[in-house]
C-alpha cells in the first residue's frame, strides 16, 4: 500500500511537471502556428494579437489555482458563515452572535490578541539584539546560523523540544532544574491551564521567529551608511546611542516589515497550541477553536471564526498591498 503511494507520488510529479510543460509549449505553439501565425497579409495584426493573448497563457494555470484554492474559498467561506449552521434557521448573523456569546471563543480571541502583542515584539527585539551583537563578530555567522536553526524545525517538533524544557520533574526539565539550583526541592507543573501559561507557549514561537527577524535585520544593519556612524562617533556618541539613535531610525522600515510578517504568522499559528495546550480551554486561540468546529462538522461556526481571523489580518493585507503598489510604480 505504501508502494502505491510512492508510485502515485512519482507519477504526480511527472504528470504535473510534464503536463504543465506540455501545456505551456503546446499552447504557445498553437498560438503562433495556428491561431495568429506571423505570416501572410495579417502579419502585423497577428503579432499584436498573439502578444495580447500570450501573457494569459503564461498566467492561466497560476490564476486558476490561486482562484480555486484561495480567492473563491475566501468568498465562499464568508457566504457560508452567513448561511450555514444556525444561520440557516435564524437570521444571517447568528453564527457570529453565538460564537461571540461563547466563553471559550472570547478567551481564544483574547489569547490571540495577547499572542499578537507579545510574539512579534519579542521576536523583533531579540532578532535586533542578535543582529547587532553578531554584526562585527568573527564567529558571528556561526552564531547566527545556530540562532536561525529553529526556523527549520516544525512547530510540532519545537513544541516537543519545549515541553521537555518545561517538564515538571526537577531531574528532567531544565526550567525546574534551574529552580532547583536556587533551592527548590520539588518540580512544579509549568503548563496546567492558567491564562498566563500562554506566555510559555509564546516562548516557542519567539524562539523560532527570532532567527527570521535576525537575518533580515542583520542585512538591514549592514546597509546603514558608515558615514552616519562615523559622524556619530566623532560627535562622541556612545555605542548605545549609536545603536538607538543612528542605526534603528535608519532601519525602521525593515523593522516594521519584520513585525508585520511575524504578526501574520502569529494570527495563523495552530500547531503549538494544538501540541502543547490542547486540553486546556484557557490556552485556546482562534485557529484551534476553528479546527474543533471544523472537525465536528459545524461549518457555520468554523467559517465564522475563519472570517474573524481574516478581519484581524485585513489591516496588514491592505498595508502590504499599498506598499507593493508604491514600489512597483
Amino acid at each position, binding site marked *: 500500500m505504501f508502494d502505491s503511494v510512492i508510485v502515485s507520488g512519482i507519477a504526480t510529479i511527472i504528470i504535473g511537471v510534464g503536463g504543465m510543460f506540455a501545456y505551456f509549449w503546446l499552447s504557445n505553439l498553437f498560438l503562433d502556428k495556428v491561431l495568429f501565425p506571423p505570416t501572410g497579409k495579417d502579419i502585423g495584426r497577428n503579432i499584436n494579437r498573439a502578444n495580447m493573448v500570450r*501573457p494569459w497563457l503564461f498566467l492561466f494555470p497560476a490564476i486558476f489555482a490561486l482562484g480555486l484554492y484561495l480567492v473563491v474559498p475566501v468568498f465562499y467561506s464568508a457566504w457560508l458563515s452567513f448561511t450555514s449552521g444556525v444561520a440557516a434557521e435564524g437570521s444571517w448573523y447568528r453564527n457570529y452572535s453565538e460564537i461571540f456569546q461563547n466563553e471559550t471563543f472570547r478567551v481564544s480571541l483574547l489569547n490571540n490578541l495577547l499572542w499578537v502583542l507579545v510574539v512579534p515584539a519579542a521576536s523583533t527585539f531579540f532578532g535586533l539584539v542578535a543582529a547587532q551583537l553578531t554584526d562585527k563578530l568573527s564567529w558571528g555567522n556561526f552564531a547566527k546560523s545556530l540562532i536561525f536553526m529553529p526556523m527549520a524545525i516544525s512547530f510540532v517538533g519545537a513544541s516537543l523540544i519545549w515541553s521537555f524544557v518545561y517538564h515538571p520533574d526537577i531531574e528532567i526539565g531544565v526550567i525546574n532544574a534551574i529552580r532547583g539550583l536556587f533551592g527548590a526541592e520539588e518540580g512544579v507543573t509549568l503548563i496546567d491551564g492558567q491564562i498566563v501559561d500562554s506566555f510559555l507557549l509564546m516562548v516557542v514561537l519567539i*524562539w523560532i521567529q527570532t532567527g527570521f527577524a535576525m537575518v533580515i535585520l542583520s542585512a538591514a544593519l549592514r546597509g546603514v551608511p558608515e558615514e552616519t556612524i562615523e559622524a556619530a562617533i566623532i560627535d562622541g556618541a556612545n555605542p548605545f546611542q549609536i545603536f538607538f539613535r543612528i542605526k534603528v531610525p535608519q532601519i525602521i522600515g525593515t523593522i516594521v516589515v519584520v513585525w508585520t510578517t511575524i504578526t501574520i504568522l502569529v494570527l495563523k499559528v495552530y500547531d503549538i497550541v494544538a501540541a502543547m495546550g490542547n486540553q486546556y480551554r484557557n490556552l485556546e486561540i482562534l485557529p484551534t477553536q476553528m479546527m474543533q468546529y471544523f472537525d465536528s462538522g459545524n461549518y457555520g461556526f468554523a467559517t465564522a471564526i475563519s472570517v474573524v481571523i481574516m478581519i484581524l489580518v485585513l489591516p496588514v493585507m491592505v498595508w502590504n498591498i499599498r506598499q507593493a503598489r508604491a514600489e512597483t510604480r
Partner: protein
Amino acid sequence: MDNIAGQKSGLSIATHLATLLLVVIWIVPTVGLLITSLRDQDAISQTGWWRALQGAPQTMILSVPVEGQVQEGDRWVLEANIFEGEPAGDLPPDILEKQTVESFGVSRLRGANVAAGGSAETRDGVTVTLTEDGTLTATAPERMEGPLNLPVALIAPPQMTLANYAEVLTDMSAEERAEARERGQTLTDMLFSDEALFGPFINTMTVAIPATIIPILIAAFAAYALAWMDFPGRGLLIAIVVGLLVVPLQLAFVPLTIIHGWLGIGKSFLGIWLAHTGFGLPLAVYLLRNYMVGLPRDIIENAKVDGATDFEIFVRIVLPLSFPALASFAIFQFLWTWNDLLVASVFLPADTESTVMTRFVVTNLLGSRGGEWHILAAAAFVMIAVPLVVFFSMQRFLVRGLLAGSVK
C-alpha cells in the same frame, strides 16, 4: 573607528559573552532533547540530560565480607575496595570499568543517602567511610560479624544508544522485535506496522516532494509574465498576489473540503498536493517575480531582437538565470510542507496509512504515550532531521529568499 580610545576591548568582551549567552539559550532546548533521544529509557527518568556524560548512578546492594578486619587498639578496622574481590563479583562490567561511587548508605531502608567521601554509622555502631574510588574503611568497637550489606549508588558510564529510534520507527522494543522475528516477521513488516513512525515518515516525504516541485513551474511562468510582459491589469494582478500572501489558510478549509468532495478527490494525497500547490503559489509567484524583474533588461531585449519568442526566452534564458530564486522558494515550500500539521489534518485522512509525522506525533504519541520521553524525543528528531539537513546545506539560498521576500 576601532581605535577610539578605551572603548573596544571592554565592549567587545561583553559582546562575545552576550552572544555566547544568546546562542547557548537558543540551542540548549534542542541539544537537550537530542541527547535525551540517545539515552537509555531508564537513565532519562533518573537524571537530567545535562548529566548524561557523567553517567547515571545505579543503586545496588553490595555485600562486603569482613574477613580482612584487623584490630587496631580497641577498635576493629576493615579496609577494602568494593571494586575488588567478592563484592565486585556481581557488578556489571561497565560499572567496574568506571569505578566511581556517587553515594552510599548503611541502611537498605534509607538507601544511598550519604555522598561519597562522607561517613555513616550503622545500627551496630560500625562507622563506614566510602570514598569515590571505592575505598571502604569500616571501624567498629567490636569484631564485625557477617558481611556488611551496603546500598551503594555506582556511576554507570553514559551509554548512547539508537534503541529509541529503532523503537519509535517500528513501534517495538528490542525484545519485541526479536519475538516478531521468531514469528517470521520481516523488517519491512515491522516498519510498516500500524503504530510505527516509519510509515508516516514515508507519507511526509510523499506529501512534501510533489507539493514542492509542482508549484515551481506554474509560478515561474506566471512570474515571467508579471515581470516581463506588458498587458492591461498587470499591476492589479501583482496587488492581488501580494494580498493573497497573507490570507489565512483557515478560510479555505471548509470550502475546499466541499469542493474536493464534489470533484471526487475527497481526503487524499492528490487533494493535499493540490492544496499545497495553491497555498504555496502566492509566495512562489511573488519571490520569482521580484527576482526576475531584477534580471538585466539587455539580455532579454537582445534575444527578442534576435527573433526569440517569449516561450524560448523564458525556457532558455530566464529560467536558468532564476535558479537561486527557484532554489529559495523550493526550500521554503519543502520546509513548510514537511513541517505542516494544519493542512495535513484537513486534507489527509486520519488513518496511519496516510497520516504524516506531525499529525502522528500529536494525535498518537502525545496522547497515548505522553510521558514516554524516550519515544517522543526520538520521534521529534526523526521528524526534524531532514529539515535540519536541508537547512544547513542550503542556508545560503534560504537567507537570499528571505531577503528577497522581506519587502512584503
